[in-house]
């Protein structure tokens, strides 16, 4: 039985030439392999700093691409998410097949983990059945050698019939070897020994499928969910339509394929053959034979990572290590970036001073200082914190530590209906919601990412603390600490309840707890830094514009005058005030402060100070004086970065007692508490909204605005109504 039906020896160049718009020397390489096999390291070594990251369309799954000039070709490298199998078992794996079908001209570079050769070769066999030009790259040979396993690439190459390259530790050399091998890439001509019944059924399905793999996948029928099945079958049908050039080959629709497959499955079930298990076993058995033939085994030694895990995952030491690790991650994310946010504040002040020194028309000067400098400053202020977070995340992910966090936190987090990995975004949200939303990308399932990200804005971030402190000190001085702690707890409770609610409403499938604990590894610094920079840049590109726009809009609201003489801001606030009267917040100046608070929540204080106490005039600044201030600021930031490694530099800003006194005149204690609760829960700040929009789309961003505002309104109303 000639199966799978792969044309032997189709040269790469033919596949490349079929590319629609590509120039003859333009090549795409799709990197496929199991998670933690070192795809990112390879792409980093080959492409250097030309790394770009973005989400696969319609998903939150990140796909990295890079362009490089290799051996006379302009090569686009596509780093696909790690996958154990082409038939997806997670959101990330679903993307791999879709991406491969979307790049029909691409060369598939399959990275194989030498420490788990048989398991990884099962994926290689699936790729072979996809009928695409293939190069196999053996990675982690040193680690395999440490465990007494040595692998012969030549034997594997002879058995597979495709080039097999051993990637040396120095990855640049590996890249050179890969380029040499890419010329010889072929579609493998393997005949997997499937039982007669399976092979015959798959052969009958083959004309309607894009490849042997698709025929077998349709036959095994155990595709994860109905939606995923539809996607995979649709992708198969599209590809079949693309490749069905010969008029004799009928263009079978996805539904026809699914219907045919169901009939074949029923037949096999009746014959007592389980297609899914039989196909999976046949593949694994073949992969196991290939691996055994190419492997020489010395003494069996245990993975050194397991010795480390005896301590790190110990039932008593583990939780302590987890708490210490999370605290350290939190501390570093915010302490390392804080001095630089301060420095950007100094830069902003100097620019404002310089603008004041120029003889510009007042409105233009106000626009430049209040809208442009302020807006760009708001965007840039996120660069240090996000870059630091991405460096830490990149390290934790690539070093194999994040999987251990999931292991240790899973029991506790599952008690509140969340997967273990959600602990990191939840902890980071106490500092700032924006990096926390970005950190949800470490979760495995799209659904979990969405519901955790939608729950995060309820957790009190650092920007809300000044509002709490000022109001608590002014209204309940004796119980200020209790009230502030209570607000933090309330935020967590609302977030957890929201996450549980979204789980039921969105009906997200439960993410699996079955995860590999990869060997500990020290990721290359250049990889971590480049990835962090690419991710920061990607955030700025998509979120920078909307944040800037929002700041300009708020500025216009504050600055523009109505013909009647009152400002647009006052008119808007007065119009909104009656709606807030049930919360005890009927004063327009208090309601008004909440509007610019949507840009950043700490602005609530500044805005109230402006309307209650009046603004301060900006001192014009000379060029030299400004440069002096900048220099001092830079030195301070550098010094604080170093000192922040062992402690937070600086304290909280002095609370403006005068503002508290004035607020006492317009608010009751109950209303002040309602204001605090409202500030805690209402509209996420613009940057959070931009982050939500980038990850999940405009629809979910609008949903978050509506949801948070509703929750905030009714919570604040309850507090005001229940306060004696």
């Amino acid at each position, binding site marked *: 039985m000639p199966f799978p039906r792969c044309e032997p020896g189709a040269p790469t160049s033919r596949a490349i030439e079929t590319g629609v718009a590509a120039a003859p020397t333009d090549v795409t390489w799709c990197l496929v392999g199991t998670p933690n096999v070192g795809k990112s390291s390879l792409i980093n070594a080959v492409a250097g700093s030309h790394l770009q990251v973005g989400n696969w369309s319609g998903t939150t799954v990140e796909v990295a691409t890079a362009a490089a000039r290799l051996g006379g070709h302009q090569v686009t490298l596509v780093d696909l998410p790690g996958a*154990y*199998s082409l*038939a997806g*078992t*997670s959101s990330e794996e679903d993307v791999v097949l879709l991406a491969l079908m979307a790049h029909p001209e691409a060369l598939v570079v399959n990275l194989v983990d030498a*420490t*788990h050769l*048989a*398991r990884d070769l*099962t994926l290689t066999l699936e790729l072979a059945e996809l009928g695409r030009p293939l190069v196999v790259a053996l990675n982690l040979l040193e680690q395999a050698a440490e465990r007494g396993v040595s692998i012969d690439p030549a034997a594997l190459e002879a058995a597979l019939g495709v080039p097999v390259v051993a990637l040396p530790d120095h990855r640049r050399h590996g890249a050179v070897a890969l380029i040499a091998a890419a010329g010889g890439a072929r579609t493998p001509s393997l005949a997997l020994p499937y039982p007669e019944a399976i092979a015959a059924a798959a052969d009958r399905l083959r004309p309607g499928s894009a490849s042997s793999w698709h025929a077998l996948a349709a036959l095994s*029928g*155990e595709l*994860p*969910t109905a939606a995923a099945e539809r996607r995979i079958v649709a992708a198969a049908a599209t590809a079949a339509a693309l490749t069905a050039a010969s008029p004799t080959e009928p263009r079978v629709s996805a539904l026809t394929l699914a219907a045919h497959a169901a009939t074949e*499955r*029923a037949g096999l*079930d009746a014959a007592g053959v*389980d297609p*899914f*298990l039989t196909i*999976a*076993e046949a593949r*694994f*058995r073949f992969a*196991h*034979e290939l691996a055994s033939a190419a492997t020489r085994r010395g003494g069996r030694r245990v*993975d050194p*990572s*397991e010795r480390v*895990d005896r301590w790190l*995952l*110990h*039932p*008593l030491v*583990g*939780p302590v290590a987890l708490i210490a690790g999370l605290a350290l991650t939190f501390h570093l994310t915010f302490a390392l970036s804080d001095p630089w946010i301060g420095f950007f504040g100094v830069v902003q002040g100097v620019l404002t001073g310089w603008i004041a020194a120029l003889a510009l028309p007042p409105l233009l000067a106000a626009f430049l200082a209040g809208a442009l400098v302020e807006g760009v400053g708001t965007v840039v202020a996120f660069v240090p914190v996000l870059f630091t977070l991405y460096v830490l995340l990149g390290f934790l992910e690539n070093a194999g530590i994040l*999987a251990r966090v*999931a*292991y*240790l936190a*899973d*029991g*506790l987090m*599952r*008690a509140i209906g969340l997967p*273990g990995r959600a602990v990191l975004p939840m902890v980071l949200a106490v500092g700032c919601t924006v990096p926390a939303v970005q950190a949800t990308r470490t979760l495995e399932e799209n659904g979990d990412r969405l519901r955790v990200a939608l729950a995060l804005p309820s957790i009190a971030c650092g920007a809300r603390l000044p509002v709490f402190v000022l109001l608590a000190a002014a209204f309940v001085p004796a119980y200020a600490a209790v009230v502030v702690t209570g607000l933090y707890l309330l935020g967590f409770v609302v977030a957890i309840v929201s996450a549980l609610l979204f789980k039921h409403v969105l009906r997200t*499938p439960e993410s*699996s*707890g*079955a*995860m*590999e*604990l*990869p*060997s500990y590894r020290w990721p290359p610094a250049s990889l971590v830094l480049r990835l962090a920079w690419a991710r920061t840049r990607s955030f700025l590109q998509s979120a920078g514009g909307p944040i800037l726009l929002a700041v300009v809009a708020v500025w216009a609201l504050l600055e523009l005058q109505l013909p009647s003489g009152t400002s647009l801001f006052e008119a808007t606030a007065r119009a909104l005030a009656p709606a807030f009267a049930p919360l005890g917040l009927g004063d327009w100046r208090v309601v008004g402060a909440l509007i610019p608070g949507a840009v950043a929540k700490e602005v609530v204080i500044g805005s109230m100070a402006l309307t209650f106490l009046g603004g301060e005039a900006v001192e014009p600044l000379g060029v030299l004086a400004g440069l002096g201030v900048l220099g001092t600021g830079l030195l301070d930031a550098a010094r604080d970065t170093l000192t922040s490694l062992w402690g937070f530099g600086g304290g909280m800003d002095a609370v403006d007692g005068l503002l508290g006194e004035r607020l006492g005149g317009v608010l009751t204690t109950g209303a002040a508490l309602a204001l605090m609760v409202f500030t805690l829960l209402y509209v996420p700040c613009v940057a959070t909204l931009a982050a939500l929009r980038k990850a999940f789309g405009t629809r979910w961003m609008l949903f978050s605005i509506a949801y948070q505002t509703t929750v905030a309104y009714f919570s604040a109303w309850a507090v005001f109504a229940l306060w004696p």
Partner: protein
Amino acid sequence: MKADRITGDSSPASDTRPACAPCCVICPLSRLGRGGCGRVVSLAGAPRLQRRLMALGLRPTAELAVLGRAPGNGPLELRAGTVHLMLRACEANDVLVQVDDPAGLLGAPERIPEGAYALPTV
């Protein structure tokens, strides 16, 4: 349609497998304590989970050892073949294992429905 429990009938490594001791028992993986070891007999549960376990290397006939259990009814830390992995206790319920030494098993023994599994042929 397909049965919800899949069973391994043979193994690529069947020639190296020691004969099953006469006292061996079949039980869910979740009953194995730290240090327990056994051999996977069959997988049950959602197809997506089965597929994932198979792909990770936790397939019928694979030998596995429980290296640890996280506190607070947390996941199990396992070694299956060469793969080091974690698995939630509730998911471990869906993995039936053959254990040679039933002394260290946790919890009350439960009756495995007749015909729900088949012993691998030795």
